């Protein structure tokens, strides 16, 4: 997602100046995505450069409103019509971390899983509490944003449960042993680690 499309969507409602855009953006994302005014103006000037918005004459109070152009409307329509690709999202650090934990000597993977599950669960509690406190009809956009984060956290906990079950099935005796390969230069080190682990 881009702030770009967020601002275009807001301008589709009608002309606005920078501070109005910032307030409306934060309102529609329930302050889960704070913007500073600098980001708003930088984005507006890029949108103007690309012909997607145009500035209007300054008001008497010295505020310059912007309006969306036809090209901006087309860009916005395309954005709404195009599903977000999963490849556009950042790499999942947690999945990589767990994969590495499994193959790194001396790491208790179950502890890594449990620590993450506790932290994610707590985040889920926080999100639920925020949701519980927002019952007004005008809170709906925010509730949906919170719901999205709730479902993501839930998915993460389910995946962690799945990891734990898999670990129990494949490694009944606690921490993961290293997975040495014959051609691995670190085999001796790994064996030493495994030995130390066993003596603990």
């Amino acid at each position, binding site marked *: 997602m881009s702030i770009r499309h967020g601002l275009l969507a807001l301008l589709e409602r009608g002309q606005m100046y920078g501070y109005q855009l910032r307030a409306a953006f934060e309102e529609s994302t329930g302050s889960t995505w704070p913007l500073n005014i600098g980001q708003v103006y930088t984005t507006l000037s890029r949108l103007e450069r690309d012909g997607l918005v145009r500035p209007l004459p300054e008001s008497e109070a010295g505020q310059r409103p912007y309006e969306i152009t036809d090209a901006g409307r087309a860009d916005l329509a395309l954005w709404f019509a195009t599903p977000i690709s999963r490849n556009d999202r950042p790499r999942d650090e947690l999945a990589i971390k767990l994969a590495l934990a499994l193959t790194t000597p001396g790491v208790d993977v179950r502890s890594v899983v*449990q620590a993450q599950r506790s932290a*994610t*669960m707590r985040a*889920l*509690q*926080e999100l639920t*509490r925020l949701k519980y406190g927002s019952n007004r009809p005008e809170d709906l956009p925010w509730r949906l944003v919170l719901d999205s984060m*709730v479902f993501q956290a*839930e998915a993460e906990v389910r995946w962690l449960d799945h990891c734990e079950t898999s670990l129990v099935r494949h490694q009944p005796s606690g921490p993961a042993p290293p997975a040495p390969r014959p051609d691995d230069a670190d085999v001796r080190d790994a064996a030493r680690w495994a030995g130390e682990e066993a003596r603990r």
Partner: protein
Amino acid sequence: MSGSDDAVLELRAVHRTHGTGPAAVHALRGVSLVVRPGELVAVMGPSGSGKSTLLALAGGLDRPTGGEVRVEGQPLGALDRRGLAQLRRRRIGYIFQQLNLLGSLSALENVALPLELDGTSGRRARALAMAALTEVGLPAMGDRFPDQLSGGQQQRVAIARALVGERRLVLADEPTGALDSQTGEAVLHLLRRRIDAGAAGVLVTHEARHAGWADRVVFLRDGVLVDTTAPLGSVEQLLSGSDR
């Protein structure tokens, strides 16, 4: 008393073993837990970790093989069958996945039943039952029979029955069962509201989204409590991000 004077539920080093000798199954191994008024504790853990055993012991439906369970300071082990049954009817509400509503009784009669069994006059029991049905948003459904209600409405009747009267401890085992996510959420909303009004609750669930409604989440594994989430800040602190 180690600061647990106001505890509604207290488990002290509770053990529950089924069978003896090499065939013994240790369902719980030294679990301690305190739940205070206004607090909802969620219990999570894989199948067979002891979640349902914990709930059965907390509700006096089963007795521990070691340690002690107290409800409002009263050690359950000191009660005879009758005393225990009375405490269960008066002070503890259960919400199970199986609703156990009686098909031949109306919604109102189902909710009033535990009070009437406990000797409350029919009139007063019905008044309290109506208050409970109103609390769960079904004031006009009292005359309906269970098979005339939707799944979500039946679940709400079961909750009204669990909350009716002066129940101080609410125990819920996967209370949203097969309900769709909106209806399930409404059920948890009701539970949360009752807890906020001063009851204490334990919610056993494998759904993280449901455990999210709790003030504290504890994790059971192989009969042992292995972890618990840190206490939550206020909504204001959450919004300002200052609770971390």
